[in-house]
């Protein structure tokens, strides 16, 4: 599914990476936008990495009309 042109790239971040990015952006986890763990994108990631716990951070790289490529982060929550 992730190979489809219209579906943005999803990357699961390791805990260290997530911490690093959060501190870079000076944000706490609860300030991140959320993604449900029953989201199709998360399900695909789970099929690769195994179960993804709540509170993990996902990086989403998507095409943007204004900035060519845009990186966003999502916090995995219970669906």
């Amino acid at each position: 599914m992730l190979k489809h042109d219209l579906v943005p790239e999803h990357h699961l971040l390791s805990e260290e990476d997530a911490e690093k990015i959060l501190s870079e952006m000076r944000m706490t986890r609860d300030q991140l936008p959320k993604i449900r763990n029953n989201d199709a994108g998360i399900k695909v990631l789970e099929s690769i990495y195994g179960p993804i716990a709540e509170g993990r951070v996902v990086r989403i790289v998507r095409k943007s009309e204004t900035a060519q490529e845009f990186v966003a982060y999502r916090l995995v929550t219970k669906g």
Partner: protein
Amino acid sequence: MMRGITKRIGSIKFSCVSPDEIRRMSATKIITADTYDDEGYPIEMGLMDPHMGVIEPGLRCKTCGCKVDECPGHFGHIDLAMPVIHVGFIKDIKLMLESTCRNCGRIMLTAEQIESRRGDMSEMRDLGGGTIELKNFSKETAKDASNKGVCPYCGTEQIKIKLDKPTTFREVDDNHKLTPKEVRERLERIPDEDLKTLGMDPATCRPEWMVLTALAVPPVTVRPSITLDSGDRSEDDLTHKLVDVLRINQRLRENRDAGAPQLIVEDLWELLQYHVTTYFDNQTSGIPPARHRSGRPLKTLAQRLKGKEGRFRSNLSGKRVNFSARTVISPDPLLSINEVGVPFIAARELTVPVHVNEHNIGKLREIVARGPAPSMENGYRPGVNYVIRSDGRRIRVTDRNAEEVAENIDIDYTIERQLMDGDVVLFNRQPSLHRMSMMAHRVRIMDGRTFRFNLCDCPPYNADFDGDEMNLHVLQSDEARAEARILMQVQENILSPRYGGPIIGAIHDHITGAYFLTHDNPRFDRFEAMNILSKMQGIEIPKPMADDDGNEYWTGRQLFSIVLPNDFRTTFKANICQNCDVCTRENCPFDAYVKIRNGQLLCGTIDAKGIGNSKGKILDRIARDYGSDRAARFINEVTRLALGAIMNHGFSTGIGDEDIPEEAALQITNYNQECIGQVSDLVDSFQNGTLDQMPGRSLRETLEVRVMKVLGQARDEAGRVAGKHLGLSNPAVIMAKSGARGSMLNLSQMAGCVGQQAVRGERLARGYWNRTLPHFHKGDLGAYARGFCSNSYKTGLNPTEFFFHAMGGREGLVDTAVRTSRSGYMQRRLVSALEDLKLTSDGTVRNTVGTVIQFKYGEDGVDPSRTVRGKAIDLDDLFAEVLGDDADKLLGVDDRDIGDDYGSREKDEMEYTEEEEGEDYDDLDTDFEGGGE
């Protein structure tokens, strides 16, 4: 103005109030339904008990001893004879009853389930789950717990509970009615621990409090009674309702105590329930609303808060304010775009607070001594309406006490000075659809009774002068003034964030004027030139040229170049450009190639593309490259210059401008006849079956498409012929071509032929059976029978054409009416969703909680009002700057059609659809609006 210590609100929690607390906070118990005794004094322990606050001046509150306006009011309470259910909580009560055991009151989940649910809840809280998410989660918990059948703790068989709207519960099996008393008993049995699982905090809210045993009575200040002129008292709706509650409560108690039959007690109980329910919400579905004696439904608690006229939308989100004014607007081209003319009558009422300090005290004494209405002999001078002493007391300044008050002024006083030239005010026109609907202006005090402003400010406000009114607000603090000046002043809003182009610019006559000034570079002698320039201040007049006879003259381009910055350079095609296949650039036969170097207009005509609003390329560049101050100056000067030019030339238009020579009219008629002939040929071939079907279309559709095409050609040809004969010196044509007002379509409809009328984009086909009007044969598919108007507005439509035209026109009107209401509601929803978002200094867009909505504003962090037509940088322009004139050639800039900005593109599209329908009802609409105002 003294301000207390400000503290930050950490959190707000809403909760139920317990009957115990109702009694504790109550100033008095209410037992009698009577309000006043025979002498007109309020009865003790009645609904108007003076313990609950005072509403009559002179009396003192018996609880706090304060007078009117000082006493905040105090609650009383009614002890209900039997408990009743609170309608507002009916859903929660139902959920609670269903999810707990009818016998032991435990939540019907196993210990493990409870454990996991509680764990999930605390995790949600840790990850920033909002109140709404938690609420939804506990609702799910309750849903899971209900429908269990058997209690896992005591093994009692459960009976399904049904809710008879609005407030009656029934057990389904034997249709046994649960009395509020039983409901309350059940709720009481739920243990505190299980409440936490259900998302309630038992410390602040127990479920049995949702079944009322005591009713809080709001203070009299909440429900004041009005004394009518006749001396009669008229009570508030809430008081009326409370009287009903008290009466029934009394009867119920008496009957119950006297041991009346169960049936009677139950009836009264239900009646009490009805009254309490309508006291909270008089629009509860399923019960008739309680009515006033006159038949008007009572306005009870929920009605006071709900809807457009409720407390929230009309008193909290929208308030009436002081220091504001409203009046009719009118134009004044001699004002700067940053100014607003304020009538002195209004200025005398509007004030600005000025703090007295050691530096300004002398000056302020002088102003105060003038009193509230200084003489107008030497023009308007601001007076003072109020002086506020350092202890906060207000002193009204009158002509009599002015001298004395001026003497007594001291440091730390504040005086309320009347408005004067240069004050910063906010100016606004409803509907406020975008941020340019409210901009900051500088005040100019003037005679007359209207607000006045520069015509260039009309487009952002969408204002005209057919009776429009506008509002003005005077800013009251230095911070507000600074912020308004920096962010909201008109000149800061020249470039629109909607499409990164100028929204403020020359309109109508300004464009025509600039056209006359520059088109084909006319010459002006000294007299004319000075006339044109006479209204301009602080300009340097260029050296005149001399013709062969030695007479000095100025060229129009020279005059226009006066207002350009000295190093200005740009190149573009004017609005009058004919889009020739090969552009001859400087040698353009229409003078449409605009070239400006070093602030000198070298060739070309200045029209809508140069200085017009939303299109003006010169304007756009000046605003972007030279800053808003320069842009404002440019607009001011262009306005004056263009008006000088148009007044020098003289300009008017009338229906005579659409006169075309006879042979042209004949030509149009002939071509129309030819097209109509073609249409009937098409119809014939359709009926014979010889018409070639188009791919993807039925035969009928094919016919329609072909006919529409032929008739479209007829109108275009008529327009072309008319345009050719009208010529470029025709005022109407000048306006249309320069982009000042009107279009060639308007002209060709007036001079040539109105063309095909349409409803929903199709030829007219409604009315009678198989025909539009009884004047035609059934099944007639010809041009005339289906709404083609071969006449022009000028020659006049014949009756059938007129009727068809009205059909097409009606659709336009209905469309606009529907569109405005629908888009208004859409906007309201969008605004409510976005109103708490803000751009933080780190570039993220966040809501009030701090949650990120967008990691970078617009994903690229670019302010659209600083873009070049939506692009962050204009590379072509940078090249042109570096490479000079060669760049255009190298890049082939002017061979490419860059197209217009978004603004005009939207507009064009709209016009296009309207043209398709054969009508441009734009102007008609505005007229209707005007009539309504």
